[in-house]
């Protein structure tokens, strides 16, 4: 097992801290690391794609799980997969798509490990129909602080605490996942433009039958155009929607036909370039188009087309702000979008989704309502206070902030956002009295 001392950050590259990084290659090595960790504890880490400090552990141990990457068993008849926690969703999709099975939930980036997707209860553009990642987990193996491995099934407190529990209940070693059947490897995509936030919300509230739906919101537009957006809806294309030559190999894995993201250069994150890119993004989208066929990578992973998009911001890194407010709280959403637009924050990528029913996870983020996620350069002056004031609006509306990507929430704002936090703390106190599992996130928010 390799061990080195490294400085780690989340994908947003803010607040670096140093830890001892262990790279276990077997469950036994992982257990030995957890049992042997010092007073500053340990935390599992996947590919480091979460923006915040959830997979950092200053002065302690970090278990890099990426060496545990075996796909152990596939049931091609029922679409079930047993795999190690360090397997990426990208690899699982490559393995399963030719067999006619697709990931039940696809988060924005493809380089997410199975353990990370469970620990943060990842959500995708199909949340309204499919829920979050943990809904499709049949079982997982959890290494707890005492060195024992538990087989955890849905409906148990340990499952509910671990799904979205940010790795603080233990280390997920392996999982059994349920995939969904698909007929082709292409997406049938509908695109339309919404001229403002009201128009967008009305369109999103109207349309219903698509599996995937999200809107790229232009948060730099002001005045009547505030909240204008490109609304994208998609389904897995049926075989008869394919051109004749493609019908013979409907499940062939196809590469994206066009570069899906603009190649950004360091230091481009300015107000002017944000406005320009948002303008181009909005104008270049078709006013209304239906049934466009896109390969899976082009539809789901436009961001991954450009490597190291997180290095675009030259100094200070990126802050990812992701919140949700319930249905009926559209007024709060309007107010927040208006405030961001008026403050002229150079926000590059803002995505609005409509969430369906939430999962059972105690600290799981998704809940029914509106979810807005955006990236902002951390170096903006007065941004900290501004986001704090947005938090207050979100909390007052009964909403919450996503812990996976958080790097700045006030600890005292947390309890109102996650009402089951006391249960989570109690279970941790019982399961892990000496604090073998800790992270910078848990220290910062006293989780």
């Amino acid at each position: 097992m390799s061990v080195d001392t490294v400085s780690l950050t989340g994908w947003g590259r803010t607040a670096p801290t140093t830890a001892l990084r262990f790279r276990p290659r077997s469950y036994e090595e992982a257990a030995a690391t957890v049992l042997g960790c010092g007073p500053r504890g340990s935390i599992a880490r996947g590919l480091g794609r979460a923006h915040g400090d959830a997979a950092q552990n200053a002065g302690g141990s970090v278990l890099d799980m990426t060496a545990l990457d075996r796909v152990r068993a596939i049931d091609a008849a029922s679409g079930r997969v047993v795999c190690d926690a360090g397997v990426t969703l990208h690899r699982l999709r490559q393995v399963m798509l030719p067999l006619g099975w697709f990931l039940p939930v696809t988060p924005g980036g493809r380089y997410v490990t199975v353990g990370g997707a469970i620990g943060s209860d990842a959500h995708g553009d199909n949340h309204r129909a499919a829920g979050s990642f943990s809904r499709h987990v049949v079982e997982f193996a959890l290494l707890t602080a005492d060195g024992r491995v538990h087989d955890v099934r849905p409906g148990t407190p340990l499952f509910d605490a671990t799904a979205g529990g940010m790795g603080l209940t233990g280390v997920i070693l392996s999982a059994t996942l349920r995939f969904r059947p698909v007929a082709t490897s292409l997406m049938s995509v509908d695109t339309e433009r919404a001229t403002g936030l009201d128009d967008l919300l009305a369109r999103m509230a109207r349309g219903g039958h698509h599996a995937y739906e999200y809107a790229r919101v232009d948060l730099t537009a002001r005045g009547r155009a505030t909240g204008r957006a490109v609304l994208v809806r998609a389904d897995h294309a049926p075989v008869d929607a394919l051109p004749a030559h493609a019908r013979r190999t409907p499940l062939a894995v196809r590469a994206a036909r066009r570069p899906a993201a603009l190649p950004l250069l360091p230091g481009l994150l300015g107000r002017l370039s944000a406005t320009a890119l948002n303008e181009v993004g909005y104008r270049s989208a078709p006013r209304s188009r239906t049934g466009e066929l896109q390969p899976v990578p082009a539809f789901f992973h436009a961001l991954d087309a450009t490597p190291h998009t997180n290095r675009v911001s030259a100094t200070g890194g990126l802050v990812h702000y992701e919140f949700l407010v319930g249905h009926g709280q559209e007024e709060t959403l309007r107010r927040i979008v208006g405030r961001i637009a008026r403050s002229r924050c150079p926000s590059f990528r803002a995505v609005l989704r409509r969430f369906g029913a939430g999962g059972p996870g105690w600290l799981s983020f998704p809940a029914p309502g509106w979810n807005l996620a955006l990236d902002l350069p951390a170096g903006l002056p007065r941004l900290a206070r501004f986001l704090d004031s947005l938090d207050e609006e979100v909390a007052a509306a009964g909403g919450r902030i996503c812990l996976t990507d958080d790097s700045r929430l006030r600890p005292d704002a947390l309890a109102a956002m996650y009402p089951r936090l006391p249960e989570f703390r109690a279970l941790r106190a019982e399961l892990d009295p000496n604090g073998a599992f800790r992270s910078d996130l848990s220290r910062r928010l006293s989780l």
Partner: protein
Amino acid sequence: MKDAFGAPQSLLVLGGTSEIGLATARRLIAHRTRTVWLAGRPSPALDAAADDLRGRGAYVQTVAFDALDTASHETVLGKIFTEGDIDMVLLAFGIPGDQERDEEEPLAAVRVAQTNYTGAVSAGLVCAGALQAQGHGSLVVLSSVAGERARRADFIYGSSKAGLDVFTQGLGDALHGTGVHVMVVRPGLVVPNAAAVRAAGGRGAGERGAGGPLATIPFTRTPLVTTPGAVADAIVTGLRRRSETVWVPGALRAVMSALRHVPRPLFRRMPV
């Protein structure tokens, strides 16, 4: 833990009655800081400072700390770190001395050097070690523009700050990549408030603050004089940007980069 903007949740101020230290603590409490340790010689002023910060909503503890008693630093400061993580250490102690008297009394000069340099080296190394062990944190050291070039008017104070400045730079390099962020702050002449800044704006204002003695430089108009509040603001901004060197006011960087290269025979004749 610090958040994405570098705002610490816990703060240790070495030199607990320092104006700049307290102004910084007040600003940080308005952000995220909830725990403050004020280290200094026990005095009513230290207690009053603690009360003031408590009134702003922080949990404040005072601890007896003497910069000159270097033998005790490991024990005193080590104890603070065992109570919990410290996200930021502000090394704010220092004495300006009295140049004329210090030249007459070498022992008084030694006291300036020992406080400003030896004491800071000792406390700085103890804190750096503790920060490194916890894997994160900021060490912010108050240097002075006086340490940039020796001046007839204050070379004893200046030399102590020069030593401290170089020590801090080296420490910053040593700790690079360990998760610990070291920042040197070089303020110009620090006067109590904005009114004093205006008063000091003219030629030869002659007032001397803890930060340094630029007042007699003829072109030191108001922009190069600063207040504890302005220094505190610059520290907060520097934390956000993870800066390694901060000049207060910022224009000093340009002024000093020019002054640094003035030939000595000429510099000697300048009314600085």
